[in-house]
């Protein structure tokens, strides 16, 4: 076992630990923070596979943007923890039994015969640019899936607007055309104020 293997197992162990933390922690904020940890350690594993661009994007996009937004949402929502945990222990033996069975089956099928000799990560020289390769593939071989992913984002946008936009009566909204056509006279009203005798407070020093 060389140094890279040790690093891999450390990252893998942290990922599994963090993933367990996401689903077991009582507080949603803790769960979200565990998810951040899981993302960071997965980024480490990708870095080991020489997928630098993906690793950085994972940290920037997921940790930096998505999870921060998610944390805001979690903190704003008033989640009733007692109701969420209701019936947890009643169903726990059932769920744990099925999960245990599935893990056992998966290990049984894959474990013994799966040798690490047959599968190796591809390694490249120092002049290899992961970003460049990804970019080239994305715009040549994978241009069709890439476009489809863009359409998916468009659907998400349309759906989000269709589901959340409400036109309520009495809402204060901007009227762009009125704003553009505004005249100076509409904005400022000059009022001639007679200065009364004896109240010259402005001139007194």
């Amino acid at each position, binding site marked *: 076992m060389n140094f890279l293997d040790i690093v891999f197992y450390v990252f893998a162990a942290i990922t599994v630990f963090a993933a367990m933390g996401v689903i077991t922690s009582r507080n949603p904020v803790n769960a979200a923070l565990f998810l951040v940890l899981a993302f960071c350690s997965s980024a480490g594993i990708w870095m080991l596979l020489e997928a630098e661009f993906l690793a950085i994007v994972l940290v920037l996009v997921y940790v930096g943007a998505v999870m921060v937004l998610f944390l805001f949402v979690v903190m704003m929502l008033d989640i009733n923890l007692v109701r969420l945990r209701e019936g947890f222990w009643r169903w726990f033996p059932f769920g744990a039994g099925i999960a245990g069975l599935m893990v056992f089956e998966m290990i049984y099928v894959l474990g013994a*015969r*799966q040798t690490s000799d*047959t599968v190796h990560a591809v390694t490249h020289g120092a002049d290899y640019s992961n970003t460049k390769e990804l970019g080239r593939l994305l715009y040549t071989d994978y241009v*069709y*899936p890439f476009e*489809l992913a863009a359409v*998916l984002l468009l659907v998400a946008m*349309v759906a989000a607007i*269709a589901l959340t936009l409400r036109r309520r009566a009495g809402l204060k909204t901007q009227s762009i055309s009125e704003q553009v056509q505004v005249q100076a006279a509409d904005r400022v009203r000059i009022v001639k104020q007679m200065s009364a005798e004896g109240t010259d407070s402005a001139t007194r020093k």
Partner: protein
Amino acid sequence: MNLMADLIPAGAEIFLLVMVCVILIVDLMLAESSKIYTYSLVMLTLLGCSLITVGTHTQGVAYAFHNMFVDDLMSDVLKLFSYIAVGTMLVYSRSYLTVRGLFTGEFMVLTLFALLGMNVMISANNFVTLYLGLELLSLSLYAMVALQRDSAVATEAAMKYFILGALASGLLLYGMSMLYGATGSLELGVISDAIKHGVPNKSLLVFGLVFIVSGLAFKLGVVPFHMWVPDVYHGAPTAMTMLIGSAPKLAAFAFTARILVEGLQPLVNDWSGMLIILAIASMALGNLSAIAQTNLKRMFAYSTISHMGFLLLGFIGGGVEGYGSAMFYAVIYVLMTLGGFGMIMLLSRAGFEADTLNDFKGLNQRSPWLAFMMLLLMFSMAGIPPTVGFYAKFSVLNAIVQTGHTWLAVLAVLFSLIGAFYYLRIVKLMYFDVPQSHEPINLAPDTGLLISVNGLSMLLLGTMPGMLMSVCAVSVQQSLLLH
């Protein structure tokens, strides 16, 4: 790379996407009362897509975009039926949605996005495009189910659909990643070749296959992955239920055929065993649970489960007969579903859903013609000659008997007989019971014509099923078996 050669086979998809964007912008300018223009544009788009799909048809199989996209006879036939199904759904649901305030531009745009997803699935030749097409379809459908925001049932249905759909996508992706690990490719043809030449780790392949079949079963809605079907069918507005129940089943057929037959044909012994269990369980549970339902939409949901089980029998049969009859069954099933849900929408009016069995009592006295159309549809679903449902069931059974699964055919007939009970119960309610409401049924000319065509097509196709059947057989042979 010749760009034009890539773009021509995908002409219909490109046209559809461009038109969706145009409709999205045009709809923004239109007032709430003039949505009829958006509707006309959508109909023109469907017409244009059909013309392009027919026009770009070539003999044999054409690949595009680095083998990500395939254009063959099967994909063209299934796409044409998808356009018909979506168009029919829009005609049926126009007045139904208008009185409920749901006939919006977003509804039509999301419908077209769903259609684009189906087209991508039908023409996919790579796991990446298969998955993206599926997500495009599912994402649009989740949003459409939730579109009726003030209805708690619809929101619950959307939530269940979304969460279980995400779980199914996860299973599917996990299986795909296993197959990628075992064969080193995501392209269906390459995977098939790699398995034929032997891979070092067969257990990994079968392990991935289990997850893929589970994911497919979720999307088809067969037992034991059927839990979402009744709730979603019941909770969604009827127009959305009609969309979920119709055209996506064609895409699901293509999806299953491409993955299991085109990609994983060498593992046929492994997956046909799994499909036998799924098929028997679906036919049993679907038909037995449907008897207990009083809500027509829920009943159709359970009937869908049993029909999907029957469809899987065609895959178990294999060969031109098996896959061809499965494709025929999928097309006929879509036509029947459109008619069934169309009838619910025709009888509904503002503030009233005609979705319980009682609403169909004495329909013969209120409108003999509609009752006769419903009779034809129900006979077809039950598989009673001379309607086409009989022929669809018969050809599937014929295919599995030929491959020696006689016991399976006997079971299928048995469950179909049980299923005939709840279809015929509706016929009994319509003709022999006293109507509970004497509300006049006002039929618009377009929907009246459509339901007549839909109902009579059951009879017409039933008397001469040969042409459609041979189209299915030829397309399956050209697309799936000559590789």
